[in-house]
Each structure stands twice: as C-alpha cells, then as structure tokens.
C-alpha cells in the first residue's frame, strides 16, 4: 500500500517536473530579461518607431539595450517555393548583442531548425509587384540568443539596407528591450507601461512575468502534492504500525505478564520494547530511504522517456523523510501504548 502510494507520488512529481521543464524551456527560449514591444506600421505610414526607440533608450539609461526587428509584409522563397517570413535588423544595433551569429558577407541569414552545418545559399524575395530579388545569405541553425527576439522556426534575417525597399508595403515592428539585470525587469516594465499610457499608444508588450507566475504556481502545486502524498503515506504508516501493534497486543500482554511473573522488572521490559521498536523502525526507514532514492531515480528516468523530456531530475527531500520519520515514530509511540497498558496490568489478571 505504502509502495503504491509512493509510486503514485513519484508519478505526480514526474508529471509536475515535466511541466516545470517545459515552462523553463519556454522562459529560456523567450528570454528571461527580454520585453517585446510590437507595432503595426501600415503601408506608406510614417513610422514612429525610430523616435520610440530613442525614448526607450533614454528611459533605459544604463539598465539595458534595445534593438528593432521588422517583420516585412513580403516573403522569400527557396526551393519548392516554400514561403519564408522575413525579418529585418540593424547591423549596428545587433553588434551590441551577443547572438553568436555565423559570418555572412551580406549579413543575410536563412535560419532553420535542426540544421547541422552552415551553407551559403541564394534566396529569391518576391515583392508586391511580383518581382524577384535575389539575396545571398547563409543557411544555418537559429542561435539560441536570437530565439528571445524572434518567435519563429524558419525565417530570413536581412540587414536594414536590403529591407528598406520592401517596407513600403507595411510591416510589424518589434522593439526588443533586453534588461541587463533581472531585478530591474519590473521597474523597466512599469516605466514602459507608463510611457505608452501617457502617449495613448496602442502597443503590445510581452514579457515573461506571466511565465514566472506560472512557474511559481507550479512550484506551489508541487510542494502541496509532495506534502499531501507524504502525509497520506504517513497516515497509512501510522495506521499500519498502530494496527499491527494492536494485533500484537494480546501476544505482548501474555509475554509481558510471563516475564513479570519470573521477576523481570517492568522498567527493563519497557526499555526492551522501546529499543526494539525504535531500532526496527529506524532500520526500516533507513532501508526505505535508500531504496526510495534509487527507485525514484529509475522512475524519473522512465518518466523522462515517456514524456519525451530530456532530463527530469528528482532531488531527495529531507522534508519528506522528516514527515515519514515523524509518522513512524508516532506509530512507535502508538505501538507502545498497549505495552505500557500491559505493564500496569497485574500478572494474575492475565495468566491463569
């Protein structure tokens, strides 16, 4: 019964750990210290994004840096006429970010997922008039640093000087603000919100606070489950030890009366029962803890494979062990009650 409950506990912990990993991955991919501010610039509209960028830079002071990406209204094609979204960037701005971009003479990249090696390629960009413009670039895997700014698996990244001719059809502008220190994130978000409220600008701002909240919530659920399962196992343990003790009550009563009839002192009998119970339960706990660590790690490995997550970790919690120890020792105390009761009973009332 205890084993089944323990396995259930491990399974639930495994599921929660898997969710935790997914959120952590999401946070990592999205960039923990990044705020994305998006604007839609309509065709032929005079963009306010340049001015906005300076305002943000002024507001940030030395607390972070900002880079603008533009999602163009046109797309590129490469082989099989696959349509690839195009993002534009400023080469001077990107130099301040450590994105580990591979070398590309033109500064154009075709980023794709799971691409083992970098290779130069030529893509065709189709403008609104259906004219094709070819661009030489480098096909490579998306650097992890870039994932914080651009949420796409396949895209073309062009330097500003190539993209200007396609901007007349409108685009989405993304101001990616990277705050240097996590502690300043809240303050910067607050200032930006005030700025946009003051300007009555309809911009969309995305930050990771929600994900952090989700993670916090998950940690709290995890800890509640842990305590719940530990308490349930403890209750079962207490009941098991207590009921076994009650079953042994008659047997103990007989043996205790017999020992007392031979002149063995009540104190010696009491001490021998206490020591026996404590030693046995402590030994049992020690073995259970040792088995639990290895069994749980095996179970976590199995769960990792089942859920397809790379690493599910299980950390040994002394809090859980403390709860189990407390429950076991309460069980021992319960088990000793009939012993003390028997010790008080006169021999002549038990033995005939």
């Amino acid at each position: 019964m205890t084993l089944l409950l323990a396995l259930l506990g491990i399974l639930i912990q495994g599921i929660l750990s898997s969710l935790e990993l997914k959120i952590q991955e999401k946070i990592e991919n999205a960039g923990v210290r990044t705020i994305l501010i998006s604007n839609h610039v309509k065709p032929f509209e005079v963009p306010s994004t340049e001015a906005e960028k300076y305002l943000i830079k002024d507001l940030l002071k030395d607390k972070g840096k900002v880079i603008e990406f533009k999602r163009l209204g046109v797309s590129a094609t490469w082989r099989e006429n696959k349509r690839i979204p195009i993002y534009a960037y400023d080469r001077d701005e990107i130099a301040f970010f450590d994105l580990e971009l591979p070398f590309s003479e033109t500064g154009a990249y075709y980023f794709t997922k799971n691409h083992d090696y970098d290779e130069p390629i030529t893509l065709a960009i189709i403008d609104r008039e259906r004219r094709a413009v070819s661009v030489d670039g480098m096909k490579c895997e998306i650097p992890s640093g870039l994932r914080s700014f651009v949420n796409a698996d396949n895209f073309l990244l062009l330097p500003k000087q190539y993209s200007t001719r396609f901007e007349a059809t409108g685009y989405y502008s993304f101001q990616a603000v990277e705050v240097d220190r996590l502690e300043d994130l809240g303050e910067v978000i607050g200032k930006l919100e005030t700025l946009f409220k003051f300007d009555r600008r309809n911009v969309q701002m995305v930050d990771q606070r929600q994900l952090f909240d989700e993670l916090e919530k998950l940690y709290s659920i995890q800890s509640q489950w842990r305590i719940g399962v530990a308490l349930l196992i403890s209750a079962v343990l207490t009941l098991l030890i207590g009921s076994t003790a009650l079953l042994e009550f008659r047997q103990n009563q007989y043996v205790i009366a017999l020992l007392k009839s031979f002149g063995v002192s009540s104190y010696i009998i009491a001490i021998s029962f206490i020591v026996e119970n404590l030693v046995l339960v402590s030994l049992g706990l020690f073995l259970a803890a040792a088995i639990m660590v290895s069994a749980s790690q095996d179970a976590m490995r199995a769960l990792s494979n089942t859920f397809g997550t790379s690493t599910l970790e299980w950390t040994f919690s002394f809090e859980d062990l403390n709860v189990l120890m407390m429950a076991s020792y309460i069980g021992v105390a319960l088990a000793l009650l009939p012993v003390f009761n028997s010790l008080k009973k006169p021999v002549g009332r038990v033995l005939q």
Partner: protein
Amino acid sequence: MKLECKSLNFRYEKNTPLVLDSFSATYDSGVHLLKGYSGCGKSTLLKLLAGYLPPSSGEVTFEGECAVASQAYRASLMSFLFQQLNLLPLASLKDNLLLSSSLNRASTQDVEYWLDKIGLAGQLNKRPSELSGGQQQRVAIARALIKKPRVLLLDEPTSGLDDLNTEAIKQLIREYREEDKESICIISTHDSRLSDLADSIYDFNRYLPIEERLEQMVKRTS
C-alpha cells in the same frame, strides 16, 4: 520460614462480591494443601500469595516483611505453577526453563539436570507442543523448581494427569522438600491423591458464604 496473610479482602471488580473476605492464615515450612470447590478462591489466594494480584485490603508478608510484590521475591524466592502451565509454545524446553531462572543465572547443565530428572533427558531443543500433557506438566514443575525457590506455589499441579504422571510430580515435590526442609509449598488442588504429601490441609470451602456452600453440596450429591 513463614508466609502470612492478614485480613485479606479481594474482589476482582468494583461492586462485585468479595472473593476473599477478611482471610487470615499463616503458612510455615512444609506442604500445605488448599482444598475446595471450583471458584471458592483457592487460585486467587495463591496469586495473592505470589504477589500477582494486589489485595483490595489487608497484606501478605514473607518472613514478616511485606515483600510479596517485590521483584526479588518473584525472581529468586518464589516460584509459581499456573493452572494453564503457560509454557512458551514456540520456544525450546531449554529456553522455557532458562527463561524462568534468567535472573538466577541457571546454566545449561542445570537445564539438562532437570530434564533428566523429569524423564526428558536430551530433549533440550524440543518444543512444548511436541510433548504430551503429562510431560508438559512435568516441564512446568521443573521450570518452577530450577531456581530453587523458598516458596513454591502450585495451582492444580496434577489436574487431568494419570497416576503415573501424578506420582512423578509428587516425587519432584518430595525431593524439593527434602533438599530444602525450610521451604514452604502451597498447593491448590481437588486431587485427593496429593493428600499424603501434605503437612496440613486447608478446607477452603469454610470461607465460602453458607448459601454457596449449600449450593456446592447439592451439586456434589446430585
């Protein structure tokens, strides 16, 4: 040597009739037989003399001291044979004998000596459940005698035994008495075959209320 009870009152539960009512008696060295009908209080008296039951009032003294409930009295001075023997069924004969004398440090040689004496030589590792009723009774007597008690209290030591086994037990009691002539042996029994052992016989029925005595007499004659 003297075992004495003074004005003993005993009842098992509150608001139940007294089993012993102002009972006084003095037992000197020798064999004393307590006779009487079932339920007249013989076994209860033995348990009070052993210190296994606390009296409701009055006292039991050994050699003038109220020491019957003490650990030393039970450990070294007194032995008790229970009606139901109370041998440990899963323990060997050796362990059963050593257990009673654990505080007196009896040796394996002592166990062998007593098993030989009761006709179970070399059967140290046998369990009580493997023995007949008579053999078990003899083992129980040996367990009582191994620690050489000054007071031997026997509750129905020959009940249900054939003549041969009864004689074996009587012989053990005789030898015990011969070894320690100062010892006190009190036997509660229905068995008239033990009468020849006795230095004195106490008719316990006379302590019963008259109504109960009449009831017992009617039962016996019918």
